[in-house]
């Protein structure tokens, strides 16, 4: 599944994936990540999903590894800290929840010469 960038940044926020607070020290998320990886490898039920503001999501080893790598990078961590502290959604109308890579309708306005989607058609 291919989520829009912003939605993905929230749904796959490393703090949510690892289940740690935005104030945790490096050692803490490293420990927690290792524990989660071990528990996922052995199929422990309690770690199969994690909670996000967009609902529960499936936790995978790849996502855990990626989250650990993101938090090790200080500037990336800062970005995730901001997103993890987002207020509840103000969105008034639904936004498509699922995009697929082959969906040209995402670019559709540009295909017909309409505005801001032209750039991707180079």
């Amino acid at each position: 599944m291919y989520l829009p960038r912003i939605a993905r940044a929230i749904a796959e926020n490393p703090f949510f994936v690892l289940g740690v607070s935005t104030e945790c020290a490096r050692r803490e998320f490293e420990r927690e990540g290792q524990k989660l990886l071990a528990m996922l490898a052995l199929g422990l039920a309690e770690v199969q999903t994690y909670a996000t503001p967009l609902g529960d999501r499936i936790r995978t080893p790849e996502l855990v590894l990626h989250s650990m790598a993101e938090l090790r990078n200080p500037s990336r961590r800062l970005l995730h800290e901001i997103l993890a502290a987002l207020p509840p959604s103000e969105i008034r109308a639904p936004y498509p929840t699922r995009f697929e890579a082959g969906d040209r309708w995402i670019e559709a306005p540009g295909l017909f010469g309409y505005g801001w989607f032209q750039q991707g058609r180079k």
Partner: protein
Amino acid sequence: MNDRPFYLGIDLGTTNSAASIFDGSQTHMVRTPQGATLTPSVVRIDSRAVITVGARARQSLESDSENVRSEFKRLMGTKQLLRFRASGKSLKPEELSAEILKSLRADVREQFGFDPAHAVISAPALFELPQSAATSEAARLAGFDRVELIQEPIASALAAGWTDETSGTWMVYDLGGGTFDVSLLETRDGLLRVVGHDGDNFLGGRDFDLAMVDLVLERLSSGRPRAFLRSDSRNADAIRKLKFAVEEAKIELTRVENTSLQIPNLQFGDVNVDVDFEVSREDVAQRCTALVDRSIAVCLRLLEANGMHPAQVSRIVLVGGPTAMPVVRQRLSETLGAPLAGGLDPMTLVAQGAALYAASANLDARPTVRTISDIGRRVWLQYPAMTSDPTPYIVGRVSEEKASGPASVRFEREGWTGAETPVTQDGTFVASVNVLPHRTNEFRILGTASDGSAVHLSPSTVRIIHGLTLADPPLSRAIGVALASDRTHIYFERGSPLPARRTFLHEVVQTIIPGSDSSVLRIPIVQGEYEKAHLCRLVGALEIRGSQLASSISSGSSIEVTLAVDRGGRLSAQALTASGQVFEEISHLLVPDAPAETLDQAIRDLRKRLSLLFNDAFQKRNKGSEFPAQLGGFELSLTEAERDAGAARAGDADAAQKARRRLIEIDAELDALEQETQFPKLEAQAVMELSMAMALLSIHGTSHERRLLDEAASALDQARKARDVPELQSRLQQIQSLARAAYFRDPDAWKQIFNMAASRINSARDLPLARKLVDQGRIAIERGDRETLMQCTRQLVNLMPVDEKIRQLGHDSGLR
């Protein structure tokens, strides 16, 4: 030695290879029967097909050149066959590498008494996927059951960091025989992390040798009517002998100021020459400084890419034989300033690091044998085999059997006993253990049943080594799938932690009929950072042939593609069709061929583009604009590519590959420069899109999105002022993304897109279907049925035709 762990690491180098073992507390080098720690990566096959490897083969490199091969690592992943004349045998590069690995395996057996079954083998960080695949294949051919690959700079860093855990950022400068890698690493809180790496696949000790060969050729040609050239195929034998001699002289000159070069009877075509003159360190410095500076430019580029400057590097670790050259050390000290790490052997550091990595991956080299102590209730355990964490977790699951299992488990080692950890109803437990620093900790696992009786568990012990925690290695180049639009769909960004696995849905652009072999759906897998697929390297393809299909794949149907890369950079891919058929075999995972005619044509095309850019630059300069400095650099790079193409015509397969890769890079760089010349157009587009995004977000955006747009707008403005094309494009994408989110909240959005698509119905791929969808869409609009309208619009837009010329550029991709 038998009671201790035994981890094997191998540095499979271009010029020399080495093996090291780690026993849980220190590393030991594996020695050849002659007592050396290095095995030259050279193979000889004589007329009786007897294979000789290493130092003995190297001795014949000069006298029996047609039956001895070296530097085949540079050809790994190509389909180039290397011929041994006397025996008539032709071997692939990976088969020759397998001979080196067999020799190292035999040395381990000789020294430690068993054949290692598992090992970690190093590979350059910038190895492409086919090259990594070829390395794994070499290991399989050498008899290893399981190997993991490690990037060379990580191995070096791990070996250096093992002995010195001082926190800080440091640089690993790895100048090998054929490639140059540089990595920035950080150690903090016991964690070793690769911050980033860069390199030059065309720069290595061999280039230094060739620079010296050119010096000798110039001296020999002086006063003669015709110069002796490397590109003349009649000189191939003389050049090889010269290269061998200058390599020896170069090594000698690391210890002395001057040495002599004596080679009698060198045959250049019809001319016979005796070489006898002196070469000095100064000669090496003169000829090689430009090459060293090229490597330093890569170091500075890496620092800049990570927002750092040389003063922030606390030390530089040198790896590889050529780093012994005084000119390298001197230039590094002059330009980067950081101290060079002492006490480390640049020739064996990679092998030692690979052995340490084997420990972190818990890859004991010995074949797995179940011992009597392993009898008991089976328990699967997960724990870090090597960690800096003083209290790591051990997670376990006890096998499900009828007899009652343990109600709790306890871990203990000498001098420490852990608490009883309860086992849950589904047989799992999570315990924490206490490890002693800087040593191998062996824990016994004790199970206790609910009635208090002991339950024997298998395995009954686990080992955890306290040391560095190694962060997952990052991917050195982005990997993705080429689309029919000549765009790259990135699956894994550069720097993504490995292992990684991702799945995306694509749409098929052509119909594949079952039974037909000529009907093929191609899913090209590419590696590189470019948005345009043809600029990325094609590293493999999944090909779905009609003859393999149970039912047809229709144009417009969806297909699920999964790419996975393991910790060593090995790629696997899978395609799942709409009918549920799975395809997994990646075809031709090979570095593409580089025939001389193709190289010549590519050089001609690039020259043409370069000349247009020169014209444009001259015209602009007349109007007061600055002349782009990089144009001169392109000229130089193209001349180098021409020289390599010349050597390729003389039969040098390595030079052909080098030329091919260089031409791809020039192509991409020219593309970037061409984009820059289009800057005013891009700038105008950015302004227009920003205005539209502002308009949309003012109506449909959230306050947070509006804030993000403000930030993006200000960054875009900065990028415009700095004329930074990549930054401008990246900000533009961010703005587009925000605008798109807002646009789709407009209740009329789908209606607008539908109406636009409907107005272009005549160009649709399947006109009857398009008409049907238009009818359905109109009804949906009347009924206010948003969901159906959305579906119709999606299908309608996907029916728009693909441009065949663009598709060819996109490596003939069958996907969009």
